[in-house]
């Protein structure tokens, strides 16, 4: 059995909130032992010994919102390219979105994703399935069978369930199977033809704005429905102070409600769109700096459960257009951790809090045993130098699409090694 011993490490265990020096042994595909404090644990014969020289060893990232082009848009991203991007970015588990062509609404397709990803991707890939057949917003999919086939959650991906009665039934029926409904809701009528956040910046650019209330009203409705049904509801990507207030109230009420935030909304604001940069055209759109600050506070106080990359590969055919005609979305697997570390370097959150939202919490939402440094847990790990500077060069991205909003950005913090199930899938040193 293969073994790796990470010595002289700064261990960060987000599950327990513990952080300190120590060493960690990987045995086969699991963590064999965690040794806090000085001194050495013995390595079995033949083990690879990695002197971390003070670098962080933490659980790999678990990303609940990733769009992969496969099936249907392989020119934008395949499981192989998404897997390389994830491994380079320290992401060891990704949950794929169902809005592909064909839509993932059937057990055969869930099985297809699982098999393709197992054969092609360097990291763990779990499919989500659509809530409604063909994403048409009318008939529910087979939650029970899909779950048995391996779908870890149900979501309409980019689409909103506008029909409140359908959402009620989905939450109710999914509850019986322990199914998690992940929803990104934007009221289409209120959103209208908006292409960015409504306000001064949109007005100056002459672009149609959409009010953040188009997010807020659907979230408020969904939380009421979660209360009515007792279902498991996860707001896939909240972006503003008012949405966080809704989530806070729901949690105080004891509802089974959680929320995610995209790294983009924690790192960028509407001003970053600058001269019509379409790589910063996102859904939901980037908000004001006040909202971004509220998001950071929401991350620090635990209102935000998880951070997602919202990785959405787009190519020149969909992005090289006037802003109002371009597609939404940005890639993020490779930059998520580095962008998030800015919050740590700025003193907004500490590293265990950040890692909790990027590994322990999302793993727990999936019911997985990853996201912790504990003997017997799967050996999904990263070695991270949190201070190493680098510049985001678009040409260096492993993703097949290059639509990063962080082009040319200066980052501090680089993943040196990524380990999935005891196997090194990315090694900066090599």
């Amino acid at each position, binding site marked *: 059995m293969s073994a790796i011993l990470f010595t002289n490490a700064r261990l960060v265990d987000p599950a327990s909130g513990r952080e300190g020096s120590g060493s960690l042994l990987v045995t086969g595909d699991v963590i064999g032992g965690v040794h806090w404090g000085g001194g050495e644990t013995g390595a079995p014969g033949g083990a690879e010994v990695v002197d971390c020289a003070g670098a962080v060893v933490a659980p790999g990232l678990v990303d609940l919102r990733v769009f992969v082009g496969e099936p249907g848009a392989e020119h934008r991203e395949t499981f192989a390219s998404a897997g390389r991007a994830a491994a380079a970015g320290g992401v060891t588990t990704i949950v794929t979105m169902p809005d592909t062509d064909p839509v993932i609404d059937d057990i055969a397709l869930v099985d297809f994703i699982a098999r393709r990803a197992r054969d092609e991707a360097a990291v763990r890939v779990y499919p989500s399935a659509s809530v409604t057949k063909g994403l048409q917003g009318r008939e529910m999919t087979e939650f029970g069978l899909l779950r048995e086939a391996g779908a870890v959650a149900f979501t309409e991906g980019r689409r909103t369930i506008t029909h409140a009665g359908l959402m009620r039934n989905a939450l109710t029926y999914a509850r019986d199977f322990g199914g998690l409904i992940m929803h990104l809701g934007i009221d289409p009528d209120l959103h209208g033809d908006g292409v960015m956040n409504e306000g001064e910046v949109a*007005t100056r650019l002459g672009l149609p704005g959409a009010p953040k209330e188009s997010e807020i009203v659907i979230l408020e409705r969904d939380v009421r429905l979660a209360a009515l049904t007792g279902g498991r509801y996860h707001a896939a990507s909240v972006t503003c102070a008012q949405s966080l207030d809704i989530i806070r109230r729901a949690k105080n009420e004891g509802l089974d409600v959680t929320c995610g935030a995209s790294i983009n909304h924690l790192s960028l604001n509407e001003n970053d769109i600058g001269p019509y940069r379409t790589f910063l055209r996102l859904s939901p759109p980037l908000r004001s700096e006040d909202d971004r600050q509220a998001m950071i506070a929401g991350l620090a106080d635990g209102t935000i459960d998880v951070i997602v990359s919202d990785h959405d590969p787009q190519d020149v055919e969909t992005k090289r257009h006037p802003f109002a005609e371009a597609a939404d979305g940005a890639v993020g697997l490779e930059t998520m951790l580095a962008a998030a570390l800015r919050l740590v370097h700025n003193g907004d959150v500490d590293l265990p809090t950040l890692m909790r939202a990027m590994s322990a919490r999302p793993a727990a939402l999936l019911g997985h045993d990853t996201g912790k440094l504990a003997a017997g847990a799967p050996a999904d790990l990263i070695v991270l130098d949190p201070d190493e500077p680098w510049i985001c060069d678009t040409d260096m991205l492993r993703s097949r699409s290059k639509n990063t909003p962080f082009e040319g950005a200066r980052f501090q913090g680089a993943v040196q090694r990524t380990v999935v199930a005891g196997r090194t899938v990315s090694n900066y040193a090599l």
Partner: protein
Amino acid sequence: MNAPESPVVLTFPHRHLLGIEGLLPPDIVSLLDRADEALEFGRQVEKKKTALRGRTQINLFFEASTRTQSSFELAGKRLGADVMNMAVANSALKKGETLVDTAMTLNAMRPDILVVRHASAGAVELLSHKVSCSVINAGDGAHEHPTQALLDALTIRRRKGRIDGLTVAICGDIAHSRVARSNIILLGTLGARVRVVAPSTLLPAGIDRLGVEVHTDMATGLRDADIVMMLRLQRERMTGNSVPSVREYFHFFGLDAAKLAHAKPDALVMHPGPMNRGVEIDSDVADGAQSVIRDQVEIGVAVRMAVLEALAAHLPNA
């Protein structure tokens, strides 16, 4: 050793004219001064100059326009350019080929100046990054229409002798108007007090942050104004979504003699055209003594000549 003294030449320091935003007061004033000269020139029998002789100007209009396109065409021809009009709105280019592809195709034909109108904000700037010639924005979505603002400013300056200190009321569909945005920036930069007057459904969010006074009532909005600038209301906005009906809009926001009486007695009435008579403006006012709407058209040609001439100084081998 000192260089020999040479006369000071006011040069326009930009290769493109993409908007009023980013221009400094001297840039604007130099264009207005140049346009003043072009205006006198245009009134002579011999109207032909040579600043653009041998140059190719392509008018690329992704959105149909009669008056702006003909104004640019005439301006280019008076400067001696070969002018070609491409109405992309009606051509096969519209579907399938992207804006950038179209730009690169045209660029391969080696034009010297592209005059571009497009329905999307930012489209002209995007195009300017992909071509090697000078680009003039003839209107991009609800963003900017710089030559319209320049011609409005010159119309005002010729009648009032100044812009600084005047009160200008811009009335109507501010939310969807590139003319409003360019004018707000230009007139504000030159020291005018700018008001916007419209029903709140036609005011964009955060407009107060652009340094304007916001009014939703014509009586207060026009009070003691020196300039009343009316905007066209697009037909699709008249019927229920932003405004309930034409008659309601005309009743509260259409410029008639009674509303105009709130402005100064010598206030000028302006409109970028084409007018909807009986919607945003009453015919009596549009054709009345205070109206300078026809002046605007003449001055438009002069302003476009001035802009073309100013950019020509940056062309290779100029």
